[in-house]
């Protein structure tokens, strides 16, 4: 390590590290330092060897590993890429040209934007006219989320959703503690302790059964037909996943995205904003079957254990093959403890699960429940606590 890295190279490396961070890589001081020392090593002689070396150093998981080459090539061979710029460019326009909201209300503004733009899309696509004003007379908790259009009320609804999620979490955790009561004699530790008494087991040590806490995996449909509800559920998801270790969240429309890392962002505004972007469907239909297949193939093994409840939030309008959906539902059913399907449409009068996709999925669902207002979500809590 005799060679000294020149100033220009250092700057370039710093730029590369910044690009990686922009793309969601976690790069600390230690990695930068090691990267610098790599530049003086034999590996730095050719890009072909430097690339895999940098990749091993900077990647932390498979998605980093898979994306790395592209970023590397673009930075060192071509011009800079800022992939994030692509995503953050989409939703700048806020309807009605409202002045910039104060910092505190930032998150809600983003959601409001999302909810409204989504609303337009659906009204056209699905033919459900958007009724207004209902929320003035009804209590927020029982109002259909679709009908809440006043930004103030939206703010309140979202706060309620987050609180509800937190309450659910607390309830589940308490329950877990109360159940830890199975006791068995821990012979090894008892003998160990008895050494200090000259071999007489004075103190008996017991083994407590370790209960796995209930894990919640939420799959949220963010397709066009659901867009009236998406922003609301995104907020609910954030409430569940934030702080709650045993929860995972996915969003799907035509494909599936794992969003828990985004949701764990401490900054609520940023998290919800990012997710609202990811949740924006590209239009086109929902492919529930295929999204579930992706889930079963790539994520299920990791996120599902024997005490997992999978919660699917979707209206069941599937443009894929119903057989495919049924197949994947069956696979999923084998793996997890319960499948809860929340369908916002149940709250509508005269709703029957007639969508083909919904019908083929129903046999595998343990609980088919409405989720059009906060009350219906609150009703889930006792069900989850019983599991």
């Amino acid at each position, binding site marked *: 390590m005799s060679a000294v890295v020149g100033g220009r190279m250092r700057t370039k490396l710093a730029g590369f590290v910044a690009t990686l961070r922009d793309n969601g890589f976690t790069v600390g001081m230690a990695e930068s330092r090691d990267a610098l020392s*790599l530049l003086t090593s034999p*590996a730095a002689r050719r890009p072909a060897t430097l690339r895999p070396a940098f990749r091993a150093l900077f990647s932390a998981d498979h998605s980093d*590993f898979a994306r790395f080459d592209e970023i590397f090539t673009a930075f060192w061979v071509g011009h800079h890429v800022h992939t994030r710029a692509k995503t953050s460019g989409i939703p700048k326009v806020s309807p009605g040209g409202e002045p910039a909201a104060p910092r505190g209300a930032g998150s809600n503004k983003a959601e409001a934007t999302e909810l409204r733009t989504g609303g337009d899309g659906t009204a056209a696509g699905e033919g459900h006219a958007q009724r207004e004003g209902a929320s003035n007379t009804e209590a927020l908790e029982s109002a259909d989320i679709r009908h809440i259009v006043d930004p103030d009320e939206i703010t309140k609804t979202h706060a309620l959703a987050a609180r509800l999620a937190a309450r659910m979490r607390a309830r589940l955790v308490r329950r877990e503690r109360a159940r830890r009561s199975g006791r068995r004699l821990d012979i*090894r530790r008892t003998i160990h302790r008895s050494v200090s008494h000259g071999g007489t087991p004075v103190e008996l040590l017991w083994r407590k059964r370790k209960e796995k806490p209930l894990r919640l995996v939420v799959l949220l449909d963010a397709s066009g037909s659901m867009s009236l509800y998406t922003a609301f559920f995104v907020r609910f998801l954030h409430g569940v996943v934030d702080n709650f270790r045993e929860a995972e969240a996915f969003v799907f429309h035509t494909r599936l995205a794992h969003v828990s890392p985004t949701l764990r962002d401490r900054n609520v505004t940023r998290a919800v904003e990012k997710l609202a972007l990811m949740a924006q469907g590209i239009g086109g239909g929902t492919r529930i079957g295929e999204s579930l297949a992706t889930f079963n193939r790539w994520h299920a093994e990791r996120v599902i254990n024997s005490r997992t409840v999978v919660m699917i939030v979707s209206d069941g309008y599937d443009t894929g093959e119903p057989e495919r959906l049924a197949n994947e539902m069956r696979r999923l059913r084998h793996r997890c403890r319960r499948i809860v399907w929340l369908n916002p449409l149940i709250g509508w009068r005269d709703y029957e699960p007639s969508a083909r996709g919904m019908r083929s999925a129903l046999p595998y669902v343990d609980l088919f429940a409405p989720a059009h207002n906060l009350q219906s979500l609150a009703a889930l809590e006792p069900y989850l606590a019983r599991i």
Partner: protein
Amino acid sequence: MSLTREDIAERLAEAGYIADRDLSTALWLMDYLGRPLLIEGEAGVGKTAVAKALAEVHKTELIRLQCYEGLDQNAALYEWNYQRQLLAIKAREGAGEDPESVEEHIFSERYLLERPLLSAIRRLTPPVLLIDEVDRADEEFEAFLLELLSDFQVSIPELGTIHAISIPRVVLTSNATRELSDALRRRCLYHYLDFPEVDREARILLTRLPNIDSNLAQQIARMVAAVRKEDLRKVPGIAETLDWAATLVGLGVHDLRQEPEAVHETMICLLKTHEDRANVTREVTERLLGKVA
């Protein structure tokens, strides 16, 4: 003393492990930066074999710690030999020795049982430490492991701190049954091991099964690659390919095209669930054969 990347690639091949260039770079980097290597990938892609091959590359010992749920320090690090301690107490009591010297005696290294992690840092030549399926261990254990991997010292309350005599080369593998902590991921270099491409798998077959001819090896590798693309519950790994190839060689098959019957019947070597077996029907086998042969 330290090997260059080319040396490592060469010695890996000598050890019978056919690695691509990226992997040998990662293995070289382990030494260069002194960091552990975390390997992920589907079951059966040869994650554990990497550690075994690495031990041969450096001509050193492999110490393996298999992780499981409930693994604790007693099983991973050290444990006192209680039975011997009790015997010693009884014997010395009888001889009328004073309690303090008895205590001194029974908490000496003679009564210490080394478990993999402790023995890995107490070797004269640095061994390869394989921490297999680290995702199966509990989160508490992961935190403890992180501490060990950064300090390479262990404190035993009754005995004091034990410093590493040599720093082992650490390979961790994970099957992604649980998300690992960011801290552990960041501490490690990362390599994702994919299923080998056709040529490499054929070379693996040729290395491991000396009496297979290269045409058949190519055909088998292509066939397995096609099977992996099917929608299966359990995708066959390299071990399955080797089993299957050995079976076909044993049956005296020289050309897959000539004997579709034998191919279909021996597919049980590759397909390990009832559902997969039922899905890959005779017609599917023939379609795949038509594509690869």
